[in-house]
Protein backbone atom coordinates (compact mmCIF):
# COMPACT_ATOMS: atom_id res chain seq x y z
CA UNK A 1 0.00 0.00 0.00
CA UNK A 2 1.30 3.45 -0.85
CA UNK A 3 1.48 5.99 1.90
CA UNK A 4 0.25 9.44 1.05
CA UNK A 5 2.11 12.58 2.00
CA UNK A 6 -0.21 13.51 4.92
CA UNK A 7 0.23 9.98 6.29
CA UNK A 8 3.99 10.32 6.10
CA UNK A 9 3.77 13.70 7.76
CA UNK A 10 1.63 12.36 10.58
CA UNK A 11 3.96 9.43 11.10
CA UNK A 12 6.98 11.74 11.12
CA UNK A 13 5.28 13.93 13.71
CA UNK A 14 4.62 10.96 15.99
CA UNK A 15 8.24 9.80 15.67
CA UNK A 16 9.50 13.30 16.40
CA UNK A 17 7.29 13.54 19.46
CA UNK A 18 8.50 10.18 20.78
CA UNK A 19 12.08 11.23 20.13
CA UNK A 20 11.59 14.46 22.10
CA UNK A 21 9.85 12.69 24.99
CA UNK A 22 12.48 9.95 25.33
CA UNK A 23 15.69 11.65 24.25
CA UNK A 24 14.91 15.22 25.39
CA UNK A 25 15.87 14.69 29.05
CA UNK A 26 19.09 12.91 28.02
CA UNK A 27 19.96 15.75 25.76
CA UNK A 28 19.24 18.31 28.47
CA UNK A 29 21.44 16.47 30.95
CA UNK A 30 24.32 16.22 28.49
CA UNK A 31 24.01 19.88 27.48
CA UNK A 32 24.01 21.02 31.11
CA UNK A 33 26.83 18.75 32.22
CA UNK A 34 29.15 20.09 29.52
CA UNK A 35 28.25 23.79 30.01
CA UNK A 36 30.02 26.41 32.11
CA UNK A 37 26.78 28.25 32.76
CA UNK A 38 25.39 27.22 36.12
CA UNK A 39 21.76 26.22 36.55
CA UNK A 40 19.39 26.11 39.49
CA UNK A 41 18.05 22.79 40.82
CA UNK A 42 15.29 21.58 38.52
CA UNK A 43 16.67 23.48 35.55
CA UNK A 44 18.32 22.04 32.45
CA UNK A 45 20.00 23.78 29.55
CA UNK A 46 18.66 22.95 26.12
CA UNK A 47 21.86 23.95 24.38
CA UNK A 48 25.48 23.75 25.63
CA UNK A 49 26.73 27.14 26.73
CA UNK A 50 30.50 27.71 26.95
CA UNK A 51 31.45 24.01 26.58
CA UNK A 52 33.69 22.66 29.33
CA UNK A 53 34.79 19.43 31.03
CA UNK A 54 35.27 21.17 34.39
CA UNK A 55 32.23 19.57 36.03
CA UNK A 56 33.39 16.10 35.12
CA UNK A 57 36.90 16.78 36.37
CA UNK A 58 35.48 18.10 39.62
CA UNK A 59 33.09 15.16 39.95
CA UNK A 60 35.96 12.76 39.39
CA UNK A 61 38.63 14.37 41.63
CA UNK A 62 36.71 16.23 44.33
CA UNK A 63 33.44 14.31 44.64
CA UNK A 64 35.46 11.14 43.97
CA UNK A 65 32.74 9.74 41.76
CA UNK A 66 35.17 6.99 40.69
CA UNK A 67 34.95 5.38 44.13
CA UNK A 68 31.19 5.09 43.90
CA UNK A 69 31.36 4.08 40.28
CA UNK A 70 33.80 1.35 41.23
CA UNK A 71 31.52 0.23 44.08
CA UNK A 72 28.53 0.14 41.79
CA UNK A 73 30.40 -1.75 39.08
CA UNK A 74 31.78 -4.27 41.53
CA UNK A 75 28.40 -4.89 43.14
CA UNK A 76 26.62 -5.12 39.82
CA UNK A 77 29.23 -7.43 38.28
CA UNK A 78 29.36 -9.94 41.12
CA UNK A 79 25.66 -9.53 41.88
CA UNK A 80 24.54 -10.17 38.31
CA UNK A 81 26.72 -13.25 37.93
CA UNK A 82 25.54 -14.71 41.25
CA UNK A 83 21.93 -13.79 40.62
CA UNK A 84 21.86 -15.35 37.15
CA UNK A 85 23.61 -18.49 38.37
CA UNK A 86 21.30 -18.96 41.33
CA UNK A 87 18.21 -18.20 39.25
CA UNK A 88 19.20 -20.66 36.53
CA UNK A 89 19.87 -23.44 39.03
CA UNK A 90 16.63 -22.75 40.91
CA UNK A 91 14.70 -22.62 37.65
CA UNK A 92 16.20 -25.94 36.55
CA UNK A 93 15.01 -27.59 39.74
CA UNK A 94 11.56 -26.05 39.54
CA UNK A 95 11.12 -26.76 35.82
CA UNK A 96 12.60 -30.24 35.53
CA UNK A 97 12.64 -31.96 38.90
CA UNK A 98 9.81 -33.48 40.83
CA UNK A 99 10.31 -33.08 44.54
CA UNK A 100 8.21 -32.78 47.63
CA UNK A 101 7.21 -29.20 48.33
CA UNK A 102 8.01 -27.91 44.84
CA UNK A 103 4.67 -26.12 44.59
CA UNK A 104 5.13 -24.53 47.98
CA UNK A 105 8.62 -23.35 47.11
CA UNK A 106 7.34 -21.87 43.85
CA UNK A 107 4.66 -20.02 45.75
CA UNK A 108 7.12 -18.82 48.38
CA UNK A 109 9.43 -17.44 45.71
CA UNK A 110 6.51 -15.84 43.91
CA UNK A 111 5.24 -14.24 47.11
CA UNK A 112 8.50 -12.30 47.48
CA UNK A 113 7.45 -10.35 44.40
CA UNK A 114 4.37 -9.06 46.21
CA UNK A 115 6.37 -7.38 48.96
CA UNK A 116 7.65 -3.85 48.33
CA UNK A 117 11.28 -3.29 49.36
CA UNK A 118 10.18 -0.80 52.02
CA UNK A 119 8.22 -3.50 53.83
CA UNK A 120 11.21 -5.76 54.24
CA UNK A 121 13.69 -2.98 54.98
CA UNK A 122 13.59 -3.30 58.77
CA UNK A 123 13.82 -7.12 58.87
CA UNK A 124 16.58 -6.92 56.28
CA UNK A 125 18.44 -4.37 58.39
CA UNK A 126 18.20 -6.68 61.39
CA UNK A 127 19.34 -9.70 59.41
CA UNK A 128 22.32 -7.83 58.02
CA UNK A 129 23.35 -6.99 61.58
CA UNK A 130 23.11 -10.61 62.71
CA UNK A 131 26.45 -12.02 63.65
CA UNK A 132 27.35 -15.06 61.58
CA UNK A 133 27.86 -18.08 63.83
CA UNK A 134 31.53 -19.10 64.25
CA UNK A 135 32.76 -15.97 62.46
CA UNK A 136 31.29 -13.65 65.05
CA UNK A 137 30.87 -10.75 62.63
CA UNK A 138 27.93 -9.48 60.61
CA UNK A 139 28.09 -8.63 56.94
CA UNK A 140 26.76 -5.12 57.65
CA UNK A 141 28.96 -2.44 56.11
CA UNK A 142 30.56 -4.72 53.54
CA UNK A 143 30.24 -5.50 49.84
CA UNK A 144 28.57 -8.75 50.84
CA UNK A 145 25.73 -6.75 52.39
CA UNK A 146 25.28 -4.88 49.12
CA UNK A 147 25.26 -8.06 47.03
CA UNK A 148 23.83 -11.05 48.88
CA UNK A 149 20.28 -9.71 49.43
CA UNK A 150 19.95 -9.36 45.63
CA UNK A 151 21.12 -12.82 44.67
CA UNK A 152 17.68 -14.40 44.81
CA UNK A 153 15.29 -12.65 42.46
CA UNK A 154 11.86 -14.15 41.80
CA UNK A 155 11.41 -12.46 38.45
CA UNK A 156 14.44 -14.08 36.87
CA UNK A 157 13.72 -17.44 38.51
CA UNK A 158 10.24 -17.44 37.00
CA UNK A 159 11.26 -16.28 33.57
CA UNK A 160 13.93 -18.98 33.36
CA UNK A 161 11.60 -21.63 34.78
CA UNK A 162 9.12 -20.99 31.98
CA UNK A 163 11.84 -21.21 29.34
CA UNK A 164 13.30 -24.38 30.80
CA UNK A 165 9.88 -26.01 30.93
CA UNK A 166 9.74 -25.51 27.16
CA UNK A 167 12.89 -27.57 26.54
CA UNK A 168 11.69 -30.99 25.33
CA UNK A 169 12.11 -33.73 27.91
CA UNK A 170 13.44 -36.08 25.23
CA UNK A 171 16.59 -33.97 25.00
CA UNK A 172 17.24 -34.48 28.67
CA UNK A 173 16.58 -38.21 28.32
CA UNK A 174 18.84 -38.41 25.26
CA UNK A 175 21.63 -36.74 27.21
CA UNK A 176 21.07 -39.11 30.10
CA UNK A 177 21.31 -42.12 27.78
CA UNK A 178 24.41 -40.55 26.21
CA UNK A 179 25.97 -40.67 29.65
CA UNK A 180 25.57 -37.10 30.88
CA UNK A 181 25.24 -36.47 34.59
CA UNK A 182 22.92 -33.88 36.11
CA UNK A 183 25.42 -31.02 35.88
CA UNK A 184 26.37 -31.89 32.30
CA UNK A 185 22.71 -31.98 31.32
CA UNK A 186 22.24 -28.57 32.87
CA UNK A 187 25.34 -26.98 31.35
CA UNK A 188 25.48 -28.64 27.95
CA UNK A 189 21.83 -29.16 27.07
CA UNK A 190 19.56 -26.85 29.06
CA UNK A 191 21.67 -23.70 29.41
CA UNK A 192 22.60 -23.39 25.71
CA UNK A 193 18.92 -23.68 24.82
CA UNK A 194 17.74 -20.94 27.17
CA UNK A 195 20.54 -18.52 26.27
CA UNK A 196 18.18 -15.81 24.99
CA UNK A 197 16.29 -15.92 28.27
CA UNK A 198 19.55 -15.83 30.20
CA UNK A 199 20.50 -12.73 28.22
CA UNK A 200 17.24 -11.09 29.19
CA UNK A 201 17.47 -11.94 32.87
CA UNK A 202 21.09 -10.78 32.90
CA UNK A 203 20.15 -7.37 31.57
CA UNK A 204 17.14 -7.00 33.82
CA UNK A 205 19.23 -8.19 36.74
CA UNK A 206 21.97 -5.72 35.88
CA UNK A 207 19.51 -2.82 35.78
CA UNK A 208 17.76 -3.98 38.94
CA UNK A 209 21.05 -4.13 40.88
CA UNK A 210 22.40 -0.93 39.34
CA UNK A 211 19.29 0.96 40.41
CA UNK A 212 19.35 -0.22 44.01
CA UNK A 213 18.92 2.71 46.34
CA UNK A 214 17.18 1.51 49.47
CA UNK A 215 19.40 -1.53 50.02
CA UNK A 216 22.72 0.36 50.06
CA UNK A 217 21.15 2.85 52.45
CA UNK A 218 20.27 0.01 54.80
CA UNK A 219 23.31 -2.16 54.21
CA UNK A 220 26.19 0.27 54.66
CA UNK A 221 26.86 3.53 56.45
CA UNK A 222 30.50 3.82 55.45
CA UNK A 223 30.56 6.45 52.71
CA UNK A 224 33.40 4.67 50.92
CA UNK A 225 31.02 1.78 50.25
CA UNK A 226 28.26 3.96 48.78
CA UNK A 227 27.05 3.17 45.32
CA UNK A 228 26.28 5.72 42.64
CA UNK A 229 22.51 6.08 43.31
CA UNK A 230 23.11 6.77 47.00
CA UNK A 231 25.74 9.37 46.22
CA UNK A 232 23.51 11.00 43.64
CA UNK A 233 20.85 11.39 46.27
CA UNK A 234 23.25 12.87 48.77
CA UNK A 235 24.55 15.33 46.16
CA UNK A 236 20.97 16.23 45.27
CA UNK A 237 20.29 17.39 48.82
CA UNK A 238 23.72 19.01 49.20
CA UNK A 239 22.85 22.72 49.05
CA UNK A 240 26.30 24.04 48.31
CA UNK A 241 26.97 21.52 45.54
CA UNK A 242 26.64 23.03 42.09
CA UNK A 243 23.78 21.64 40.07
CA UNK A 244 26.00 21.06 37.02
CA UNK A 245 28.28 18.78 39.02
CA UNK A 246 25.34 16.76 40.22
CA UNK A 247 24.27 16.41 36.62
CA UNK A 248 27.79 15.41 35.55
CA UNK A 249 27.70 12.59 38.11
CA UNK A 250 24.32 11.60 36.71
CA UNK A 251 25.88 11.28 33.27
CA UNK A 252 28.67 9.13 34.73
CA UNK A 253 26.04 6.93 36.40
CA UNK A 254 24.17 6.45 33.14
CA UNK A 255 27.09 5.43 30.94
CA UNK A 256 27.52 1.80 32.15
CA UNK A 257 23.80 1.09 31.60
CA UNK A 258 23.96 2.37 28.06
CA UNK A 259 27.15 0.41 27.35
CA UNK A 260 25.65 -2.83 28.67
CA UNK A 261 22.46 -2.27 26.73
CA UNK A 262 24.37 -1.66 23.50
CA UNK A 263 26.49 -4.77 24.07
CA UNK A 264 23.55 -7.05 24.78
CA UNK A 265 20.94 -5.27 22.66
CA UNK A 266 20.36 -8.25 20.39
CA UNK A 267 19.89 -10.66 23.29
CA UNK A 268 17.68 -8.17 25.05
CA UNK A 269 15.26 -7.75 22.17
CA UNK A 270 15.24 -11.46 21.33
CA UNK A 271 14.56 -12.37 24.94
CA UNK A 272 11.70 -9.93 25.14
CA UNK A 273 10.27 -11.12 21.85
CA UNK A 274 10.45 -14.83 22.60
CA UNK A 275 8.82 -14.19 25.94
CA UNK A 276 6.07 -12.27 24.18
CA UNK A 277 5.42 -14.92 21.55
CA UNK A 278 5.30 -17.67 24.12
CA UNK A 279 2.60 -15.66 25.92
Amino acid at each position, binding site marked *: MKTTFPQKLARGAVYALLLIVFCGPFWGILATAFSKTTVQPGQLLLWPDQPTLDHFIYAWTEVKAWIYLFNSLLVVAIGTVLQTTVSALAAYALARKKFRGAAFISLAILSTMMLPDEVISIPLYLILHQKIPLLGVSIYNSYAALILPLVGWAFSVFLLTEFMKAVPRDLEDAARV*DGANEIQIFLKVIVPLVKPALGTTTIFGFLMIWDQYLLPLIAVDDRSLYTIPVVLRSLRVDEIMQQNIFIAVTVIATVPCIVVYLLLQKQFNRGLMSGAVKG
Partner: protein
Amino acid sequence: MGSVSLKNVSKSFGSVKVIHDVSLEIDEGEFCVLIGPSGSGKSTLLRIIAGLEDVSSGNISIGKRHVTDLPPKQRDIAMVFQTYALYPQMTVRENMGFALKLAGLPKAQINTKVTEVARMLELDQLLERLPKELSGGQRQRVSMGRAIVRNPSVFLFDEPLSNLDAKLRVQVRGEIADLHRRLQTTSVYVTHDQVEAMTLGQKIVVLKDGRVEQVGKPLELYDDPVNTFVASFLGTPTINLIEAEVTGLGDACAARLPDGTLTPLGQSNGCTTGQKILFGIRPEHARLSLEDQPGAIRARIHAVENTGSDMVVFNDAEGFRITSAFKEQRTLEPGASVSILPDPAKIRIFDAATGKRIRRSEDA
Protein backbone atom coordinates in the same frame (compact mmCIF):
# COMPACT_ATOMS: atom_id res chain seq x y z
CA MET B 1 26.08 -57.33 22.22
CA GLY B 2 23.69 -58.74 24.71
CA SER B 3 20.38 -60.33 25.36
CA VAL B 4 17.68 -58.50 27.28
CA SER B 5 15.71 -60.18 29.98
CA LEU B 6 12.78 -58.79 31.95
CA LYS B 7 11.49 -60.75 34.92
CA ASN B 8 8.14 -59.90 36.50
CA VAL B 9 8.53 -56.21 35.80
CA SER B 10 5.79 -53.94 37.17
CA LYS B 11 5.56 -50.19 37.18
CA SER B 12 3.15 -47.85 38.89
CA PHE B 13 2.81 -44.11 38.61
CA GLY B 14 1.34 -43.21 41.97
CA SER B 15 -1.63 -45.49 42.41
CA VAL B 16 -1.95 -46.24 38.70
CA LYS B 17 -0.31 -49.47 37.64
CA VAL B 18 0.84 -49.16 34.03
CA ILE B 19 2.97 -52.29 33.61
CA HIS B 20 1.67 -55.56 35.03
CA ASP B 21 4.15 -58.29 35.76
CA VAL B 22 5.86 -58.39 32.36
CA SER B 23 8.43 -61.11 31.69
CA LEU B 24 10.24 -61.16 28.41
CA GLU B 25 13.35 -62.72 26.89
CA ILE B 26 15.03 -61.03 23.94
CA ASP B 27 17.86 -63.05 22.48
CA GLU B 28 21.24 -61.69 21.55
CA GLY B 29 21.11 -60.06 18.12
CA GLU B 30 17.34 -60.32 17.92
CA PHE B 31 15.09 -57.55 16.60
CA CYS B 32 12.16 -57.38 18.97
CA VAL B 33 9.15 -55.15 18.34
CA LEU B 34 6.86 -53.97 21.13
CA ILE B 35 3.50 -53.12 19.68
CA GLY B 36 0.23 -51.99 21.15
CA PRO B 37 -2.28 -49.15 21.05
CA SER B 38 -1.52 -45.88 22.83
CA GLY B 39 -1.57 -46.33 26.58
CA SER B 40 -0.53 -49.98 26.33
CA GLY B 41 2.71 -49.25 28.17
CA LYS B 42 5.07 -50.04 25.32
CA SER B 43 7.03 -46.79 25.58
CA THR B 44 7.13 -47.07 29.35
CA LEU B 45 8.54 -50.57 29.01
CA LEU B 46 11.23 -49.29 26.64
CA ARG B 47 12.09 -46.46 29.02
CA ILE B 48 12.34 -49.03 31.81
CA ILE B 49 14.86 -51.01 29.74
CA ALA B 50 16.72 -47.76 29.06
CA GLY B 51 16.79 -46.87 32.73
CA LEU B 52 14.87 -43.65 32.22
CA GLU B 53 12.10 -45.02 34.44
CA ASP B 54 12.71 -47.18 37.45
CA VAL B 55 10.64 -50.28 38.10
CA SER B 56 8.23 -50.75 40.99
CA SER B 57 9.19 -54.41 41.13
CA GLY B 58 10.95 -56.99 39.00
CA ASN B 59 14.39 -57.39 37.46
CA ILE B 60 16.09 -56.41 34.24
CA SER B 61 19.29 -57.88 32.85
CA ILE B 62 21.24 -56.90 29.78
CA GLY B 63 23.75 -59.52 28.70
CA LYS B 64 24.72 -61.20 31.93
CA ARG B 65 24.52 -58.04 34.00
CA HIS B 66 21.71 -57.10 36.34
CA VAL B 67 20.94 -53.51 35.45
CA THR B 68 17.72 -52.92 37.39
CA ASP B 69 19.32 -50.30 39.63
CA LEU B 70 21.86 -48.90 37.20
CA PRO B 71 21.47 -45.47 35.55
CA PRO B 72 21.12 -45.37 31.74
CA LYS B 73 24.77 -44.60 31.11
CA GLN B 74 25.90 -47.80 32.79
CA ARG B 75 23.50 -50.02 30.85
CA ASP B 76 25.41 -49.94 27.58
CA ILE B 77 22.35 -49.01 25.54
CA ALA B 78 21.62 -46.35 22.94
CA MET B 79 18.22 -44.92 22.20
CA VAL B 80 16.57 -43.38 19.15
CA PHE B 81 13.72 -41.06 20.04
CA GLN B 82 10.47 -40.32 18.25
CA THR B 83 11.29 -36.62 18.25
CA TYR B 84 14.91 -37.40 17.24
CA ALA B 85 16.02 -35.44 20.34
CA LEU B 86 19.02 -33.94 18.58
CA TYR B 87 20.73 -31.19 20.55
CA PRO B 88 19.71 -28.09 18.55
CA GLN B 89 22.81 -26.09 19.39
CA MET B 90 25.24 -28.77 18.26
CA THR B 91 26.27 -29.70 14.73
CA VAL B 92 25.66 -33.19 13.38
CA ARG B 93 29.25 -34.06 14.21
CA GLU B 94 28.90 -32.81 17.79
CA ASN B 95 25.58 -34.57 18.22
CA MET B 96 27.01 -37.87 17.11
CA GLY B 97 30.16 -37.48 19.16
CA PHE B 98 28.50 -36.20 22.34
CA ALA B 99 28.33 -39.53 24.13
CA LEU B 100 31.93 -40.35 23.23
CA LYS B 101 33.04 -36.93 24.42
CA LEU B 102 31.25 -37.47 27.73
CA ALA B 103 32.95 -40.84 27.99
CA GLY B 104 36.26 -39.03 27.73
CA LEU B 105 37.50 -40.49 24.44
CA PRO B 106 40.35 -38.63 22.72
CA LYS B 107 39.26 -36.18 20.03
CA ALA B 108 40.98 -38.01 17.20
CA GLN B 109 39.25 -41.25 18.06
CA ILE B 110 35.84 -39.55 18.28
CA ASN B 111 36.42 -38.00 14.88
CA THR B 112 37.35 -41.32 13.29
CA LYS B 113 34.30 -43.07 14.69
CA VAL B 114 31.89 -40.28 13.80
CA THR B 115 33.25 -40.04 10.27
CA GLU B 116 33.03 -43.79 9.81
CA VAL B 117 29.40 -43.99 10.94
CA ALA B 118 28.49 -40.85 9.00
CA ARG B 119 29.82 -42.47 5.85
CA MET B 120 27.82 -45.60 6.53
CA LEU B 121 24.62 -43.54 6.90
CA GLU B 122 25.53 -41.17 4.07
CA LEU B 123 25.70 -38.25 6.44
CA ASP B 124 29.31 -37.32 5.66
CA GLN B 125 28.30 -34.23 3.69
CA LEU B 126 26.14 -32.95 6.54
CA LEU B 127 28.52 -33.20 9.48
CA GLU B 128 28.93 -29.46 9.99
CA ARG B 129 25.21 -28.65 9.77
CA LEU B 130 22.87 -27.91 12.62
CA PRO B 131 19.80 -30.12 13.11
CA LYS B 132 17.48 -27.33 11.99
CA GLU B 133 19.21 -27.35 8.60
CA LEU B 134 18.32 -31.02 8.01
CA SER B 135 15.19 -32.70 6.66
CA GLY B 136 13.15 -35.05 8.82
CA GLY B 137 14.72 -38.15 7.32
CA GLN B 138 18.23 -36.79 7.73
CA ARG B 139 17.53 -35.93 11.35
CA GLN B 140 16.32 -39.44 11.96
CA ARG B 141 19.48 -40.82 10.43
CA VAL B 142 21.61 -38.55 12.61
CA SER B 143 19.80 -39.79 15.66
CA MET B 144 20.48 -43.37 14.56
CA GLY B 145 24.08 -42.43 13.87
CA ARG B 146 24.36 -41.05 17.37
CA ALA B 147 23.25 -44.44 18.66
CA ILE B 148 25.48 -46.51 16.35
CA VAL B 149 28.65 -44.53 17.11
CA ARG B 150 28.58 -45.81 20.65
CA ASN B 151 28.51 -49.44 19.59
CA PRO B 152 26.10 -50.37 22.40
CA SER B 153 24.87 -53.82 23.46
CA VAL B 154 21.29 -52.88 22.74
CA PHE B 155 19.53 -50.37 20.50
CA LEU B 156 16.25 -48.98 21.73
CA PHE B 157 13.91 -47.35 19.23
CA ASP B 158 10.94 -45.34 20.45
CA GLU B 159 8.55 -44.97 17.51
CA PRO B 160 11.37 -43.61 15.35
CA LEU B 161 9.34 -43.35 12.16
CA SER B 162 6.12 -41.75 13.34
CA ASN B 163 7.24 -38.20 12.54
CA LEU B 164 8.13 -39.03 8.94
CA ASP B 165 5.85 -38.90 5.93
CA ALA B 166 4.57 -42.17 4.47
CA LYS B 167 7.13 -42.52 1.69
CA LEU B 168 10.09 -41.68 3.86
CA ARG B 169 8.83 -44.06 6.49
CA VAL B 170 9.11 -46.99 4.09
CA GLN B 171 12.61 -45.92 3.09
CA VAL B 172 13.91 -45.45 6.64
CA ARG B 173 12.23 -48.70 7.67
CA GLY B 174 14.33 -50.45 5.04
CA GLU B 175 17.44 -48.67 6.29
CA ILE B 176 16.77 -49.82 9.84
CA ALA B 177 16.33 -53.41 8.65
CA ASP B 178 19.59 -53.20 6.63
CA LEU B 179 21.39 -51.75 9.59
CA HIS B 180 20.28 -54.56 11.83
CA ARG B 181 21.35 -57.15 9.30
CA ARG B 182 24.78 -55.55 9.14
CA LEU B 183 25.37 -54.79 12.82
CA GLN B 184 23.41 -57.69 14.34
CA THR B 185 22.87 -55.63 17.48
CA THR B 186 20.04 -56.62 19.77
CA SER B 187 17.24 -54.12 19.13
CA VAL B 188 14.02 -53.27 20.91
CA TYR B 189 11.65 -51.28 18.77
CA VAL B 190 8.43 -49.64 19.91
CA THR B 191 5.70 -48.88 17.42
CA HIS B 192 1.94 -48.76 17.08
CA ASP B 193 2.22 -49.47 13.37
CA GLN B 194 1.61 -53.12 12.63
CA VAL B 195 3.26 -52.92 9.21
CA GLU B 196 6.49 -51.81 10.87
CA ALA B 197 6.13 -54.58 13.40
CA MET B 198 5.49 -57.28 10.81
CA THR B 199 8.28 -56.17 8.46
CA LEU B 200 11.01 -55.41 11.01
CA GLY B 201 10.38 -57.75 13.89
CA GLN B 202 11.91 -61.15 14.37
CA LYS B 203 9.91 -61.30 17.54
CA ILE B 204 6.77 -59.30 18.22
CA VAL B 205 5.39 -58.56 21.65
CA VAL B 206 1.77 -57.41 21.65
CA LEU B 207 0.92 -55.27 24.65
CA LYS B 208 -2.42 -54.11 25.98
CA ASP B 209 -3.03 -52.13 29.16
CA GLY B 210 0.47 -52.92 30.41
CA ARG B 211 0.14 -56.67 29.95
CA VAL B 212 1.76 -58.94 27.39
CA GLU B 213 -0.98 -60.45 25.24
CA GLN B 214 1.20 -62.60 23.02
CA VAL B 215 4.83 -63.04 22.02
CA GLY B 216 5.90 -64.68 18.81
CA LYS B 217 7.24 -64.47 15.29
CA PRO B 218 5.28 -62.11 13.04
CA LEU B 219 3.46 -64.82 11.07
CA GLU B 220 2.77 -66.86 14.17
CA LEU B 221 0.92 -63.94 15.64
CA TYR B 222 -0.88 -63.27 12.41
CA ASP B 223 -1.97 -66.83 11.78
CA ASP B 224 -2.30 -68.04 15.29
CA PRO B 225 -3.52 -65.23 17.56
CA VAL B 226 -4.37 -66.16 21.13
CA ASN B 227 -7.27 -63.73 21.41
CA THR B 228 -9.42 -61.28 19.49
CA PHE B 229 -7.22 -58.36 20.53
CA VAL B 230 -4.12 -59.76 18.86
CA ALA B 231 -6.17 -61.01 15.92
CA SER B 232 -7.66 -57.61 15.23
CA PHE B 233 -4.56 -55.58 16.10
CA LEU B 234 -2.46 -57.22 13.40
CA GLY B 235 -3.56 -57.18 9.79
CA THR B 236 -5.01 -54.54 7.49
CA PRO B 237 -7.85 -54.62 6.65
CA THR B 238 -8.66 -55.97 10.05
CA ILE B 239 -9.96 -59.49 10.63
CA ASN B 240 -13.72 -60.12 10.40
CA LEU B 241 -15.10 -61.09 13.79
CA ILE B 242 -18.71 -62.20 13.52
CA GLU B 243 -20.91 -63.12 16.44
CA ALA B 244 -22.03 -66.72 16.00
CA GLU B 245 -23.27 -69.76 17.82
CA VAL B 246 -21.90 -73.28 17.76
CA THR B 247 -24.28 -75.87 16.49
CA GLY B 248 -24.05 -79.49 15.42
CA LEU B 249 -23.91 -80.32 11.76
CA GLY B 250 -24.06 -84.02 11.15
CA ASP B 251 -21.27 -85.44 13.26
CA ALA B 252 -19.18 -82.27 13.08
CA CYS B 253 -19.70 -78.72 14.31
CA ALA B 254 -20.69 -75.57 12.53
CA ALA B 255 -21.02 -71.90 13.32
CA ARG B 256 -24.45 -70.38 12.85
CA LEU B 257 -23.91 -66.81 11.68
CA PRO B 258 -26.53 -64.10 12.37
CA ASP B 259 -28.05 -64.55 8.90
CA GLY B 260 -28.50 -68.25 9.50
CA THR B 261 -25.63 -69.41 7.36
CA LEU B 262 -24.04 -72.58 8.67
CA THR B 263 -20.28 -72.68 8.25
CA PRO B 264 -18.56 -75.96 9.05
CA LEU B 265 -15.96 -75.66 11.81
CA GLY B 266 -14.68 -79.19 11.57
CA GLN B 267 -13.98 -79.68 15.27
CA SER B 268 -13.94 -83.44 15.05
CA ASN B 269 -13.10 -83.62 18.75
CA GLY B 270 -16.56 -82.53 19.81
CA CYS B 271 -18.23 -79.19 20.26
CA THR B 272 -20.36 -77.36 22.78
CA THR B 273 -23.63 -76.73 21.07
CA GLY B 274 -25.11 -73.34 21.86
CA GLN B 275 -21.76 -71.78 22.79
CA LYS B 276 -21.51 -68.13 21.80
CA ILE B 277 -18.39 -67.51 19.74
CA LEU B 278 -16.75 -64.91 17.57
CA PHE B 279 -16.21 -66.32 14.14
CA GLY B 280 -12.95 -64.89 12.80
CA ILE B 281 -11.84 -64.87 9.19
CA ARG B 282 -9.22 -62.58 7.67
CA PRO B 283 -10.46 -60.61 4.64
CA GLU B 284 -8.00 -62.32 2.30
CA HIS B 285 -9.41 -65.68 3.38
CA ALA B 286 -13.02 -64.67 2.69
CA ARG B 287 -13.37 -65.50 -0.99
CA LEU B 288 -15.81 -63.27 -2.79
CA SER B 289 -17.79 -64.53 -5.73
CA LEU B 290 -20.51 -63.05 -7.87
CA GLU B 291 -22.15 -66.44 -8.34
CA ASP B 292 -24.22 -68.08 -5.68
CA GLN B 293 -22.35 -70.88 -3.94
CA PRO B 294 -23.64 -73.52 -1.55
CA GLY B 295 -22.81 -72.75 2.10
CA ALA B 296 -21.64 -69.22 1.29
CA ILE B 297 -22.66 -66.02 3.07
CA ARG B 298 -24.96 -63.94 0.93
CA ALA B 299 -24.26 -60.24 1.03
CA ARG B 300 -24.48 -56.98 -0.84
CA ILE B 301 -21.44 -54.84 -1.64
CA HIS B 302 -21.41 -51.73 0.53
CA ALA B 303 -18.17 -50.13 -0.68
CA VAL B 304 -15.12 -50.96 -2.72
CA GLU B 305 -11.60 -49.68 -2.07
CA ASN B 306 -9.12 -50.20 -4.83
CA THR B 307 -5.46 -49.33 -4.22
CA GLY B 308 -4.37 -50.66 -7.59
CA SER B 309 -2.51 -53.57 -6.06
CA ASP B 310 -5.26 -54.66 -3.71
CA MET B 311 -9.02 -54.59 -3.68
CA VAL B 312 -10.90 -54.39 -0.42
CA VAL B 313 -14.64 -54.95 -0.56
CA PHE B 314 -16.92 -54.13 2.36
CA ASN B 315 -20.09 -56.17 2.29
CA ASP B 316 -23.38 -56.01 4.18
CA ALA B 317 -24.78 -59.41 5.07
CA GLU B 318 -27.95 -59.82 7.06
CA GLY B 319 -27.07 -58.71 10.58
CA PHE B 320 -23.34 -58.21 10.16
CA ARG B 321 -20.61 -56.80 7.98
CA ILE B 322 -17.89 -58.79 6.30
CA THR B 323 -14.80 -57.56 4.48
CA SER B 324 -13.11 -59.39 1.68
CA ALA B 325 -9.72 -58.61 0.14
CA PHE B 326 -7.88 -59.97 -2.86
CA LYS B 327 -5.19 -59.09 -5.38
CA GLU B 328 -6.87 -59.55 -8.73
CA GLN B 329 -8.64 -56.60 -10.32
CA ARG B 330 -12.37 -57.18 -10.76
CA THR B 331 -15.24 -54.97 -11.73
CA LEU B 332 -17.42 -54.63 -8.66
CA GLU B 333 -20.13 -52.08 -7.97
CA PRO B 334 -21.69 -51.20 -4.62
CA GLY B 335 -25.11 -52.77 -4.32
CA ALA B 336 -24.22 -55.91 -6.25
CA SER B 337 -25.16 -59.25 -4.70
CA VAL B 338 -22.22 -61.46 -3.83
CA SER B 339 -21.54 -64.63 -1.97
CA ILE B 340 -18.62 -65.00 0.39
CA LEU B 341 -17.00 -68.28 1.22
CA PRO B 342 -14.57 -68.44 4.19
CA ASP B 343 -11.57 -70.74 3.70
CA PRO B 344 -12.32 -73.50 6.25
CA ALA B 345 -8.65 -73.98 7.16
CA LYS B 346 -8.26 -70.31 8.01
CA ILE B 347 -11.25 -69.89 10.28
CA ARG B 348 -10.29 -68.84 13.81
CA ILE B 349 -12.88 -68.96 16.55
CA PHE B 350 -12.88 -67.10 19.83
CA ASP B 351 -14.95 -67.26 22.98
CA ALA B 352 -17.52 -64.46 22.72
CA ALA B 353 -17.35 -63.62 26.41
CA THR B 354 -13.58 -63.66 27.04
CA GLY B 355 -12.26 -63.10 23.52
CA LYS B 356 -9.91 -66.05 24.05
CA ARG B 357 -9.10 -68.32 21.17
CA ILE B 358 -10.91 -71.66 21.01
CA ARG B 359 -8.54 -74.10 19.36
CA ARG B 360 -10.07 -76.46 16.90
CA SER B 361 -8.39 -79.77 16.33
CA GLU B 362 -7.80 -78.56 12.76
CA ASP B 363 -5.78 -75.53 13.94
CA ALA B 364 -2.87 -77.48 15.28
